[in-house]
């Protein structure tokens, strides 16, 4: 059985605060990288990125973002003065506007579901903002995670991803050609 990986790249660069508006993504989480910190953020319906304090984040510091939901993943990388191309990955055709995006499909052999364990265990005494949970570990300190499920003491959170396998040469060798982040789960 073959599968298809759909990927769209924006035809022109755009700043980070426009990428959510330009895409059909809803109810998503984001991994944001700045020189100062690596943040997990919640993407709201109006396209704003919120931190664990509930406040919108200042997006001008971030040089790379991976925004993910169960349907698709958005990637953005700063190329020039805060502008970069947007790439969208999905398992199904999202019917995006071809004037804004160019579509590329890749034939796959299959996919694998993977799970990464996040650093830290739940600390119960702290009551964070709605929709967030706090993990902590002596080695790194605290890590706030956007998660609506409630956590019990010492429970851990995992990040689910999907690895796509495809043939890469004429000899039939199959490798992981792509990986998409899916969701955070207890």
């Amino acid at each position, binding site marked *: 059985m073959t599968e298809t990986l759909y*990927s769209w*790249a924006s035809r022109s660069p755009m*700043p980070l605060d426009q990428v959510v508006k330009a895409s059909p993504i809803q109810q998503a989480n984001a991994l944001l990288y700045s*020189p*100062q*910190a*690596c943040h997990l953020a919640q993407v709201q319906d109006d396209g704003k990125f919120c931190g664990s304090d509930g406040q919108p984040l200042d997006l*001008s*510091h*971030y*040089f790379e973002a991976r925004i993910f939901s169960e349907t698709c993943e958005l*990637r*953005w*990388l*700063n190329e020039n*003065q*805060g502008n970069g*191309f947007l*790439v969208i*990955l999905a398992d199904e055709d999202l019917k995006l506007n071809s004037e804004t995006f160019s579509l*590329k499909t890749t034939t796959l052999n299959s996919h694998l579901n993977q799970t990464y364990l996040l*650093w*830290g*265990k739940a*600390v119960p005494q*702290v009551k964070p903002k709605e929709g967030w949970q*706090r*993990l*902590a*570990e*002596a*080695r*790194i*300190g*605290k890590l706030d995670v956007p998660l609506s499920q409630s956590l019990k003491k010492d429970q851990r959170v995992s990040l689910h991803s999907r690895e796509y396998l495809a043939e890469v040469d004429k000899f039939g060798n199959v490798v992981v050609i*792509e*990986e998409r982040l899916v969701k955070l789960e207890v």
Partner: protein
Amino acid sequence: MHSDWHVGSGTGRAELDSIVQRDADDLPYLPAKTLTGILRDGCEQVAQALDSGMTGQWNDWLKVLFGDQPALATTPLEDEPRPAIVSIHSAHLDENLRQSLKQKQKLRTAIAFMKPGVAIDPESGCALNKYLRFEEMVRQGAVLTAEAQLDFSDAYPDLSPDEYLPFVQGLLTAGAKMVQRLGGKRRRGNGRCEIELDWGQTGDPLTWLKDNYDQVPAVPKLHSENCAVSLNDNSLNADGTWVTVPLTLTTQSPLVLPARTVGNLVECLDYIPGRYLLRYLHKKLGVYVNISQAIASNALILTNATREIDNQPGRPTPFCLFGEKLDGGLSKGRNVYNRFQEADPQGIQLKGERGGYLGPWTDNALPAYKKVDLALYTHNTINDEIQRPSAEVGGLYSYEAIPAGLTFQAELRLSATVQQKLSEKVNNWQDLLVGETRIGQSKKDQYGGVEITVGSPANSSNTQAGKSQDNSSDNHLYVWFLSDVLMRGDRLNPTLNPDDFTQALEKELGVRLKLRETPNCFSMMLRQRRTESWQVRWGLPRPSLLGWQAGSCLAYEIEGNLDPEKLQQVAIRGIGDRRAEGYGQLSFNDPLLTDKQLSSKQRNSDLDKSQQPNSNVVLLSKNSNTQTTNKVPNDVFKYARIIEKAAWREAIQTKALALAEGPETRQSVLGITINGEDSCPPMSQLGGLRSVLGKLRKREDPNAVSTWINALKQVDNRQEKWPGKSLDQIKQLVTDTNQIWQILNLDYKTLTLTDSGTAKLQANLWAEAVRTLVDAMIRAHKRDLEKAQTTKNP
């Protein structure tokens, strides 16, 4: 050190089961990790005493000074671990002593000795079978000095020194007083020591502590560093011209730059990635120009520092080079093939060259080649409860490290805008970069000391990056990766597809590139490498960096007109991601890759001649500094004498045994011979000589041996038993104080450290030398006699 000590390296050697750790000069030292750990332990005791328990403000201050220990935490902690502000480096012997010992192998060996030990069966009280062991011990009396820093400015910049310093000094001084023993077997009498902290002219911190210990200030809050940078600012652009500043880095202590961690071993890189120096750059130039901004705009590049070869940064060996497996290769300096230009020599097995660095191209000869031989250091974490290393708190772990004393070179490249901004603020801004810093893992103690010096800035065209692309060879383009290259594919994913690299290069150069097709030769030699690293500021690991390894190379055919200006720009600015950190450096059309007859070339072998040892021997003196002597403190002088004496004893023993082996020497020195199956004189007489020699103690004492000989001569019956003039010969040996030294003929130059050493030791060790020689000769004589008797009467 008041008793013999042993800080083990975790390994053994030959007959020794456990050897002591030695530094780059092959001398024992106290590793910073040992010192810090033992001082922390002392301070913990003081803090617990002052707080009357395990918690309280003094205990908190202890964590501020020495940092948190996340490995010991039993519950998740929301606060990130505090860094240590006390930074203690390794303690070494006196500099003058080290310099003198450097040139004398025998004395370096004599500083330590072999100590046997055995385990006792608790039930029988007897030695356990198979439990005999030999440990190396360093002789007592050593004085070792370490540098230490107390720097609040990074983590707690708002603290006022007047308020906290006396308390900190008090705690550390009291902690140092608590330390009485360190190193291995310290509960068996070894490693008894005293630590003194030199605070300069500040009075006695202990007296101060005694009066003020109950007014301890509150523990400060950790300051979070702010380095906000806006990507939308374009004031620093990377335009056409670049300025290059060559940086020379000399390692002052070993460097641990983690490549990956395998079990409890941290493997180390053999170069210094540019990213390790960015913090230093921020500190030195950050006041004058926004470094973060310059990095974000790609207007600043710090290349990787690689081993210096002929005053230039070494270049990673290109993978297109192959050496003859049996008799060739870069390390041997001959029979190296450039498989981009030369076909496979049929019938000769080739092996790809990997690792190591090459010097600049020299016509008609192979370029110089150097590798970094990484050192390995083993440490442990002691579990306080059981006072031993245990897996729960970390146990044993090893660090691979770049050794101290090596020189590396890197380049700082700045775009004209950044350079202009700097020049407006400071005239000679590059001089600001001269200094010392600490980089890599465990930099607060034992590792990471680097000294940085600066060459004169050059325009981009004069540098390594600018030179190579001059000769465009027959419409071919040869690319050599001077550092790892990270690229993104069309899904913004890290790519390892060569086509993605080709496309990116085509875009930069404005030409079409096609992989060269040549029969019997390669055109693409790529390897991939994954870099895992920890982002210190994030306090988290950073995503794996996946890219092509330095040393990869490609040969293209060009379609279209190649603009040399563009080629030079790419050579300077690099390609792909994270160029400011040293990634993405390329070299084009290097003569090494275009050379068609590399296999016929050899390396000139006169490259390493500069490393001749200094023959100017300097001795240590108690009194004066002259051309041939260095004045040292009294305790250092005393220790030098201890080492000397041990080396002399060893040399006397060895020489005496060697001399005693020959029957002719025995006859010429003592006049004793073997006649058939008989000893002349008989063994009973020789027994008498040995016994009387045992009383020989000092050169000045009334000589018991002479008296014995005189008494012997009075009795004819006995005198007759001694052949010829043997009794006179022995008398001469014990009365003429020079004779023994003439017979032994030791190499005093290699055995002496102090200016008056030879004369003093000849006086001190005279009796011992005579005893040793005569004893050895009588033993050898007896052995030969027994042999003669057995041959005759088997």
